[in-house]
């Protein structure tokens, strides 16, 4: 089963969807049908996936000194990730046929979601850095379109622009990193890049055993320059931090809640923010060699996961709470990459990606439904909104259980694996393991606390029975499916798609303990009050503004840039242009003088003079020269 089919089908659906966008039914049928067929294909591909295979589209392209093979890779891990991406995309497509039924631009939305899915699948399957960049950039563009879908609202336009600008700025680092890695290897092929930048361990060890010094051994084995490698990887990580909304780029994701809820589900659960984890996992062998890059990423994600969790707890808007929880959870995934010991690999992080995709899409879709029923996404408005349908109660229970990391459900399993991996990393004392471990334990507690808060507000608190009107059966079925997977999805470990070490029972106990602490803290105010009101009343307004990151961006980035621009504009108009204008005046003056000189009617006398001058000067010059 060729991965090109899995990547190409949603792209084709996007093109078709744009063509038929005027007809909502047709556009919906194309989008849902394509997603369903893609899911089938991805599932079959996963079932058949054995050894890692490389699929080349044809002859290798040569662009200058670069070799561009445009390969796609397929192995069980990638197939599993692709399957969950398509699964979430299908759920989102089905859900949006109902959620956006009255929207006049539904056709564009469905086509954009298809394109978005295709781009994410391209990143997942990419065996070529060029394809990774293509998928990465297409996702950035699609997220701009989706966040700004309700473009008649100024706040939606602003959020879209902010998402675009912030991720674009970070993408500068990503592109530079990719270009540097590819240039060093002379090709964009992922395997060749990894081979070129990896440390030739066996060779170095052999040389050291023979008694040569470290420097001599590295030189003899033609090891890549570690400083350059660290720099390139840090640049790559900057791009990842931007797309994944990690500190210091964290603020765009919460504002992106201006987009329609299905779009949020897609961006948060399966695509975009998770793409960074996929990319870093694919370059993991090189990444693991560079302590600098690991420390950089580890520091950023440690700050982010705790900050995101705290801010999530104190949000007055539950949709934004989920957004901040995504920031925190993506940091957990990245922690599994940053702090894993080299021999363990990034699979714990990827497993958390898989789990997060399932429970976060479930939570977003359920909150969207509840918000329609309750008429708003504020915690106050949403009190008891889960009463709108039985499936919502179960959905919130399963989703928040998973998010909190309660053992045995999928979110708990994946979090335990991340914890265990980070612990191994901390013990190995190579990299930021200890720091990440501390942050991770604290974050787990806070996560359990805000999960409890969400569940309390949505489900336990009661009110008059809200209603979202008639909801199609398909949407209910999708939610039940996601509920099932959020509970039982952890069974994926038995397929061997992720290379995970077995977990000791100790971790189960520890996680239970940590989660228990979080839940207990959240329940201090009793079952009837919003824990945020009890514990963090003062923090709420600050948290709603994202700690004032907007003002910070403005002060640290926007204002200096504008000031610099003003200086440049002044220099341009007053200094540089003066020379330009002066040269124009001088030219015209010279032209005028030249014209004056040639105004005479009879140049015959002048010809004679010139003639004589040529002969005399020529003769004189030659005589003097010789």
């Amino acid at each position, binding site marked *: 089963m060729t991965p090109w089919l899995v990547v190409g089908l949603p792209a084709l659906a996007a093109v078709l969807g744009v063509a038929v966008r005027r007809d909502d039914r047709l556009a919906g049928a194309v989008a849902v049908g394509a997603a369903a067929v893609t899911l089938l294909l991805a599932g079959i591909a996963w079932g058949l996936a054995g050894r890692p295979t490389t699929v080349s589209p044809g002859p290798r392209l040569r662009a200058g000194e670069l070799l561009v093979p445009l390969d796609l890779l397929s192995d069980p891990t990638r197939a599993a990730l692709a399957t969950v991406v398509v699964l979430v995309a299908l759920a989102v497509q089905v859900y949006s046929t109902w959620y956006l039924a009255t929207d006049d631009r539904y056709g564009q939305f469905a086509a954009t979601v298809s394109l978005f899915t295709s781009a994410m699948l391209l990143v997942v399957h990419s065996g070529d850095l060029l394809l990774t960049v293509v998928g990465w950039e297409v996702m950035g563009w699609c997220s701009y379109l989706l966040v700004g879908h309700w473009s008649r609202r100024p706040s939606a336009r602003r959020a879209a622009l902010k998402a675009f600008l912030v991720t674009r700025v970070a993408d500068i680092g990503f592109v530079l990193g990719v270009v540097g890695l590819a240039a060093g290897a002379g090709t964009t092929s992922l395997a060749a890049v990894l081979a070129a930048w990896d440390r030739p361990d066996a060779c170095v060890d052999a040389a050291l055993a023979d008694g040569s010094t470290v420097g001599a051994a590295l030189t003899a084995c033609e090891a890549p320059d570690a400083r350059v490698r660290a720099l390139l990887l840090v640049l790559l990580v900057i791009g990842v931090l931007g797309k994944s909304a990690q500190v210091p780029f964290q603020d765009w994701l919460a504002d992106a809640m201006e987009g329609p809820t299905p779009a949020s589900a897609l961006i948060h659960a399966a695509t975009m923010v998770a793409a960074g984890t996929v990319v870093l996992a694919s370059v993991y062998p090189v990444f693991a060699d560079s302590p600098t890059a690991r420390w950089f990423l580890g520091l950023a994600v440690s700050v982010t996961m705790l900050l995101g969790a705290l801010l999530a707890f104190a949000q007055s808007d539950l949709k934004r709470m989920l957004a901040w929880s995504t920031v925190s959870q993506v940091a957990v995934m990245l922690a599994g990459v940053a702090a894993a010991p080299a021999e363990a690999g990034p699979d714990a992080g990827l497993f958390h990606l898989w789990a997060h995709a399932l429970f976060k899409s479930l939570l977003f879709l359920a909150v969207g439904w509840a918000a329609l029923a309750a008429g708003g996404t504020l915690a106050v408005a949403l009190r008891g909104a889960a009463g709108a349908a039985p499936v919502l109660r179960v959905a919130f229970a399963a989703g928040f259980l998973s998010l909190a990391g309660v053992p045995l459900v999928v979110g708990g399993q994946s979090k335990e694996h991340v914890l265990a991996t980070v612990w191994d990393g901390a013990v190995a004392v190579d990299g930021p393991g200890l720091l990440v471990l501390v942050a991770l334990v604290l974050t787990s507690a806070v996560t359990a606390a805000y999960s409890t808060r969400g569940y309390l507000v949505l489900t336990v608190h009661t009110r008059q029975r809200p209603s979202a009107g008639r909801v199609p059966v398909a949407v209910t079925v999708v939610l039940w499916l996601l509920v099932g997977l959020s509970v039982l999805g952890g069974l994926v470990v038995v397929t061997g798609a992720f290379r995970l070490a077995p977990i000791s029972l100790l971790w189960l106990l520890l996680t239970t303990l940590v989660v228990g602490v979080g839940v207990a803290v959240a329940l201090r105010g009793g079952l009837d009050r919003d824990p945020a009101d009890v514990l963090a009343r003062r923090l709420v307004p600050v948290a709603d503004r994202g700690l004032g990151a907007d003002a910070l961006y403005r002060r640290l980035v926007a204002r200096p840039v504008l000031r610099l621009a003003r200086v440049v504009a002044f220099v341009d108009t007053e200094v540089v242009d003066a020379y330009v204008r002066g040269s124009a005046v001088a030219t015209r003056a010279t*032209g005028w003088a*030249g014209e004056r000189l*040639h105004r005479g009617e009879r*140049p015959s006398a002048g010809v004679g003079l010139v003639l004589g001058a040529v002969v005399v000067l*020529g003769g004189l010059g030659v005589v003097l020269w010789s």
Partner: protein
Amino acid sequence: MSALVSVDWLVLAPALAPAAGVVLVLAGDALAGGRAGRWALPLAAVTLVVGAGLALRGTVAGADAPLRTLCLPAPDGACLWTAGPRTSTLQAAVLLAAAAGLALLHDGRPRPRDGAVTATLLLAATTGGVAVAAARDLGTWLVALELATVPAVALVALRGSRPAVHGALSLLVTSLASFALLVLGAALWLTATGDAAFSRPSAAAAWAVPEQRAVLLLAVTVLVAGLGFKLSLVPFHAWTPQAYATTDLGTALFLATASKLSAVAALLVVAGALVDLGGATTPVVLVLGLPAVASLLLGTVVALRQDDPVRLLAWSTIAQAGWVLVPLTALSDAGARAAAAYVLAYAAASAVAFAVLSRTGARTLEATRGLLRREPLAGGALLIALLVLAGLPPGVIGLVTKILALSAPVTAGVWPVALAGVLAVVLGIAVYLRWVAVLLGAGTTPTALEEPGTGRRRSSVVVLVLGGVVLVVTSALPHVLLASAS
């Protein structure tokens, strides 16, 4: 015919065709009496186009196996007529440019009464222009060059108006001075090299001996000065704007294109002999570079202030003559090729511009305002011609030839000339875009078009369409022109 010299008539055909045209026109005039004015010009044009077709035969010959004739039997079999691909292309261009001049003369109002005389003069000048391109010995070169010049003076004088006589007088004085210089230069060349032909080995041998080197340098200086009059290089340019402005458009086109092409062909014969001089070539570069830089800058700067399109084109001719000289300062074969390619592109663009002026009857830049909307065909042709002259896409051929012209001195390390060229590019863009802006502007009342008799100028339309097609095709496929100039 003497057995001493072998003659291949077919090779000589490009020069023989206009000469035969002269005989035909004169005979027809004698037989038909005064009614010859009607058909003399078309007949002459036909012979020119036939000649151009015959000249194109030489462009397919390999560069290492040129068409040769008039060869002497012994001792070394020197040939007086050597036409490689580049020479043949230049010959064809001279013939076609002359035909374009005839077409504009045919459209002129009032139509020339003495058509036979006009046709004869133009054909004679063309014969000289074609012959000089293939001449490799001093004698043929001098005679052909003079044959290319003197009839042109008479053509300017034929207008009969008082300013035209002034123009012709100025041109005549200039021509005489230039002929004097050329003869002097030829004599010095013969003295320095002891060879009656422009050949590389003898020039290099003379350059190696200090005494001979001085004489050779003086010969080159005087020859460049003499050719400078014909090419309108600064400081030998003063006749150009006056002659163009006082004569009619057909003659001006002939002077601006066919005359320039033959003068460049003559210069390439001299420059071709100077390629392998050996060390210490700075004085030669100076002799070629000084007029080049002066022409580039003065021509462009003064063109910037002209409101009469003919005078603007005249000053632009002066600047473009400088451009032709720029690659020659490299003293290399690549430079010679770049100069030939440049002058070909310039001649085509210039012919189109004159044809558009003839079609619209515009005598000021303002009269062409909004021409692109009023008359898309003429306006479009003028637009592409101006862009080629400025060297801006989509006039790609202008850009390519300018880059080639600059790359030769850059390769040879003649930086001052290259810098002057860069400056001239910037100024030149201002010159031609000034006119382009007028062309694109919103149309005013078309005063020029309402003049009686401007509606039917079919020959000019043919010239501007064919010239425009040449510019568009060579812009799309520049290598066609570059290959034929190699």
